[in-house]
């Protein structure tokens, strides 16, 4: 793309053209992510509706397909209410602080072979740091609202996110040990060669820990004590309305999508085909199944996204002390033990260490 732009805009220095090209790539990715988020809300209502023997949205457009746009429009034109005693400046900054890291983390995701907006060497670390920043939006929203419910929600979510971040970090250490790189593109490349090469097999416990911690990190059911509708109304975002509420909503779903994509990238080979190495790519029609591409990443992400919705429809909310117990006393020891097991693997040259 840089070459095409350089031909059009020959009068600009090459650095400016590169900057423009990456801006366009960022814009394209952001639009795709936001559209996916919009349709995730639709999918969520449809899937949960299906599980509860209801229809889900079916009035706006064919089978409710235009529902997300109607919702966005409604949220954008609603009044933004700022509570009288709220800390006005922080109250309005908090939604931005929640949304920005959720979108920024997408920069290092390898969407298809040879594409990532920022091909960082420390990509995995960058991801960890971005996901850990999202917590500021939630804490500040809770504090700045000057509401008891909001503060309680913020405190719960802060403790929860700090606890699960550690387990998540250790799970990523496991991936790092197996792949020998922090670069996400290289991690995917290490898993190429079909299903049997995926890290989900040698790192099965870490995969489970990572995904469940991801559900907890995004404050989704059954770990949604931060919102806890039946206990603290809506937790940290009780006081938010209209566009500011929409930003929290967008951030939550963007994070959900991110965790689903990351699980696919780190443990299921990302854009690589599950059948590469099993099917000869030279075959007509069937051979296409062996080709790597965005399609495979999207398919794997969809599976995990469905699991997110499935969990929400299935499980009752965890109690607060049970969440803490699971995070600190179950997940962290499991990851630590498996890192030790991986060290043994690497000495014996088993699996990805061969």
């Amino acid at each position, binding site marked *: 793309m840089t070459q095409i732009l350089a031909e059009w805009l020959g009068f*600009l*220095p090459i*650095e*400016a053209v590169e900057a423009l090209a990456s801006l366009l790539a960022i814009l394209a990715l952001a639009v795709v992510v936001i559209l996916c988020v919009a349709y995730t809300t639709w999918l969520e209502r449809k899937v949960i509706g299906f599980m509860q023997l209801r229809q889900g949205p079916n009035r706006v457009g064919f089978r409710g397909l235009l529902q997300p746009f109607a919702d966005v429009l409604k949220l954008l034109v609603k009044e933004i209410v700022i509570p009288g005693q709220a*800390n006005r400046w*922080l109250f309005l900054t908090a939604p931005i602080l929640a949304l920005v890291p959720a979108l920024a983390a997408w920069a290092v995701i390898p969407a298809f072979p040879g594409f990532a907006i920022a091909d*960082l*060497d*420390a990509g995995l*670390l*960058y991801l*960890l*740091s971005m996901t*850990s*920043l999202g*917590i*500021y939006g939630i*804490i*500040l929203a809770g*504090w700045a609202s000057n509401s008891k419910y909001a*503060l309680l929600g913020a*405190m719960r979510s*802060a403790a929860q996110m*700090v606890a699960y*971040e550690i387990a998540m970090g250790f799970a990523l250490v496991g991936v790092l040990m197996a792949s020998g790189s*922090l*670069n996400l593109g290289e991690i995917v490349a290490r898993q190429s060669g079909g299903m049997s090469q995926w890290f989900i097999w040698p790192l099965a416990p870490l995969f489970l820990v990572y995904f469940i911690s991801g559900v907890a990190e995004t404050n989704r059911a059954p770990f949604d004590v931060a919102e806890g509708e039946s206990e603290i109304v809506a937790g940290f975002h009780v006081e938010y309305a209209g566009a500011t509420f929409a930003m929290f909503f967008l951030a939550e779903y963007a994070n959900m999508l991110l965790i689903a994509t990351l699980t696919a990238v780190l443990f299921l080979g990302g854009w690589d085909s599950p059948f590469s190495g099993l099917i000869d790519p030279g075959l007509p029609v069937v051979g296409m199944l062996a080709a790597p591409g965005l399609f495979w990443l999207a398919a794997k992400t969809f599976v995990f996204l469905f699991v997110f919705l499935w969990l929400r429809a299935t499980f009752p909310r965890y109690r607060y*002390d049970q969440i803490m*117990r699971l995070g600190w006393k179950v997940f962290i020891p499991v990851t630590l033990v498996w890192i030790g097991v991986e060290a043994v693997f690497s000495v014996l040259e088993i699996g990805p260490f061969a």
Partner: protein
Amino acid sequence: MQLLVDWFPFILFSGWSGMLIASALGVILARNPVHSVLFLVLCFVISAAIWLLLHAEFLAVALVLVYVGAVMVLLLFVVMMLDIKAERMREGLVRYAPFGVLVGLLLAAQLASVWWLRDSGMELLAQPQTPYFSEGNTRALGELLYTEHLYAFEIAGYILLLAIVGAITLTLRRRGGLRVQQVSEQVAVRPEDRVRLVKMKAERPE
């Protein structure tokens, strides 16, 4: 246009440095302690950005991850929970001022020693040279830490571990009379322990 491109790193550096100094002032001048903490967060993020200009991407990301993502979250947590009155904190200002000035001067002297170092003929890298980081600076750092500086690294790790154990021992207190859930007992419970089945006739005997 070319001029802008050439000076771009300098513009970024001076812009970020200015913001860094401004937010550092914000830390000590803000009236609200929560605002101070947030200014400190901003300081860390901007320092990370300045490190990125030096191609020190591992350090930059680690700074954001460790300090912004973990340490400052806990600090913010504590500051929000504490009932801090700004007026009472200002009471000791005059008393502690000389000490503060002394520490400030020491720090300034340390920073100024860079000038002395530059003239002392020590081998300095004017600009980070790309070949130096050819294998990625995360790997380069890791190789140095785990070979040449292994002992120092391990000792630092033990000191941190000691600090963790110390902090927990100091703050851990066991309160008696708490009703704590025993999960293993709950899981291991059998119907016989909890339910007593009583056999009796459906009708009262005449």
